[in-house]
């Protein structure tokens, strides 16, 4: 090799990465060429090891081992106990369990603290109630709910109004005895069925143009079945007075079962029989002011009010309404009432069959009671027989 070794070849030679066939030639050249040998020596001296003779102190090892012990103690202190210790090993199971527990807690909270179910029974709301008005032997107050089976007593010169929804209202004028015999709903789309008894006193009924209530009134001497109307009804001394303002009502005489229709602007007096006559303009002024009616301003137009008589049988409707759902025939043995009049298919006729106390009705009731008693005895005998060991 005549030329000098390039620093690249020299670097590879020192690094040991030069190819084997060049290594010998470079070694030969270094033995011959002083300049290249000097360069080689300088490089070897420059990269000679300088730190390999250094030693770390023994204390360094002690420090490392001490650090290991300290970390082990920290780990023991931080190691979670109980369910938390499961988290690193079974994170999904712990997560699922936690979610299930949270869901159970929320469900329990919802069940425990849910608001009370709103009363779904229909009711009439009391309004403009005068002092002294009593419902079920306690004072009636404004906005009180009047449910089925309630009995309202109004002393003289008092009034109270019962409302359903926005339109329907009944204004009671004392002295009066009034009971809500039936008030039930058959669904949101069906009108509420209301049946009341006016044992004595005055009421002014106003449907308000709504058809949300299918209602009927009973008095000791008659039954009134209006359809969307406004009228006055009075019961006194066994007589019943109806004064019509708008619409019409059907009045059925209690004893004779005679039916008359009272049209708007007419009045009907039911005593021994139902008499319908044209209402005078003074009669119709009754509807202008309930306060005047209460204060006795229309004594000539209405019957003479009689003092309140104590009725211990307020819980019993004047005329037992026939339950529509349980309407069956031929079930006398089970104590159900069989219609005693032929049905003409309309609602009014069907109701008629259960209205008004009659001798036929009381005999029927006796027969039913007798059948019930017999049935009860037969059942007891069967039970007794079953209990007796063979």
């Amino acid at each position, binding site marked *: 090799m005549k030329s000098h070794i390039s620093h690249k070849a020299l670097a590879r030679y020192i690094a040991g*990465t030069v190819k084997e066939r060049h290594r010998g030639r470079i070694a030969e050249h270094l033995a011959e060429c002083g300049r290249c040998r000097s360069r080689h020596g300088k490089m070897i001296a420059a*990269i000679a*090891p*300088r730190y390999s003779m*250094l030693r*770390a102190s023994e204390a*360094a*090892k002690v420090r*490392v*081992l001490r650090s290991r012990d300290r970390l082990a103690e920290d780990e023991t202190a931080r190691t979670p106990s109980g369910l938390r210790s499961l988290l690193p090993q079974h994170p999904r199971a712990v997560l699922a369990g936690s979610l299930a527990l949270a869901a159970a807690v929320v469900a329990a909270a919802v069940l425990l603290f849910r608001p009370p179910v709103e009363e779904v029974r229909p009711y009439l709301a009391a309004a403009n109630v005068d002092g002294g008005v009593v419902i079920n032997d306690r004072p009636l107050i404004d906005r009180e709910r009047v449910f089925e089976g309630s009995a309202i007593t109004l002393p003289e010169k008092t009034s109270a109004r019962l409302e359903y929804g926005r339109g329907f209202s009944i204004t009671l004028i004392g002295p009066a005895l009034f009971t809500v015999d039936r008030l039930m709903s058959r669904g949101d789309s069906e009108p509420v069925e209301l049946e009341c008894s006016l044992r004595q006193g005055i009421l002014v009924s106003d449907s308000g143009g709504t058809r949300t209530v299918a209602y009927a009134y009973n008095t000791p001497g008659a039954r009134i079945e209006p359809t969307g109307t406004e009228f006055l009804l009075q019961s006194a001394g066994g007589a019943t007075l109806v004064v019509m303002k708008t619409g019409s009502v059907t009045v059925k005489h209690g004893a004779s079962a005679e039916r008359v229709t009272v049209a708007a602007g007419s009045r009907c007096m039911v005593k021994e029989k139902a008499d319908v006559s044209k209402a005078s303009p003074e009669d119709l002024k009754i509807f202008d002011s309930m306060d005047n009616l209460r204060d006795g301003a229309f004594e000539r137009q209405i019957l003479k009010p009689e003092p309140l008589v104590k009725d211990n049988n307020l819980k019993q409707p004047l005329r037992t309404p026939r339950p529509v759902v349980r309407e069956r025939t031929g079930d006398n043995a089970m104590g159900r009432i069989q219609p005693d009049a032929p049905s003409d298919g309309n609602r009014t006729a069907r109701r008629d069959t259960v209205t008004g106390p009659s001798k036929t009705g009381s005999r029927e009731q006796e027969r039913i009671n007798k059948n019930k008693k017999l049935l009860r005895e037969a059942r007891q005998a069967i039970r007794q027989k079953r209990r007796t060991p063979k």
Partner: protein
Amino acid sequence: MIDNKTLSDIYDRHHHELFVYICGFTRMPEVAEDFLHDAFVRLIRYSQKYPLDPTNIRAFLYRTARNICIDHARRNKKLNISPLEENLKSGGGDPQTDLELRELRGTVDSLVDARDQLSRSVYLMRTELDMPYQEIAGALNISERTAKRKMSSMLEYLADSLEKAGFKLFMLILLSLLAILFVIYR
């Protein structure tokens, strides 16, 4: 977590080469000892979370030590590098030769510092620890070919730079002499 005996064995097996390796970066034995300790603490922390792979511990320690050195260098860009004069081998007794040798090594240090971390690692392992390329490759998680290329490249760079540095010194001396002659004979 790694137990005391295993840790002691690992320390005995690797602490010296790691210490030298770190010294190559820091050039300060006290600092190198601290970094050695830090590297082993990181190994212990790692063993708290994951099982240790015995075949990978050496590479882990080298990688950790290198990262610690890099972090330290970034934090202290202006390092007070002591040349470890007391630890360096004497050039042979002649003060003039020793002085030249020290100057040469100072130049080499500054040249090596200018290279990338991987090249420095390969260079230190090869020159200081005399490790074969296969071991270097295993410890640094690189291929043997890459290790050889890095080493050749580093030496080529050093040789080139040193020759240029020698030429610059010669030119500097020559210019100084010319300036002195000019002042004398003006």
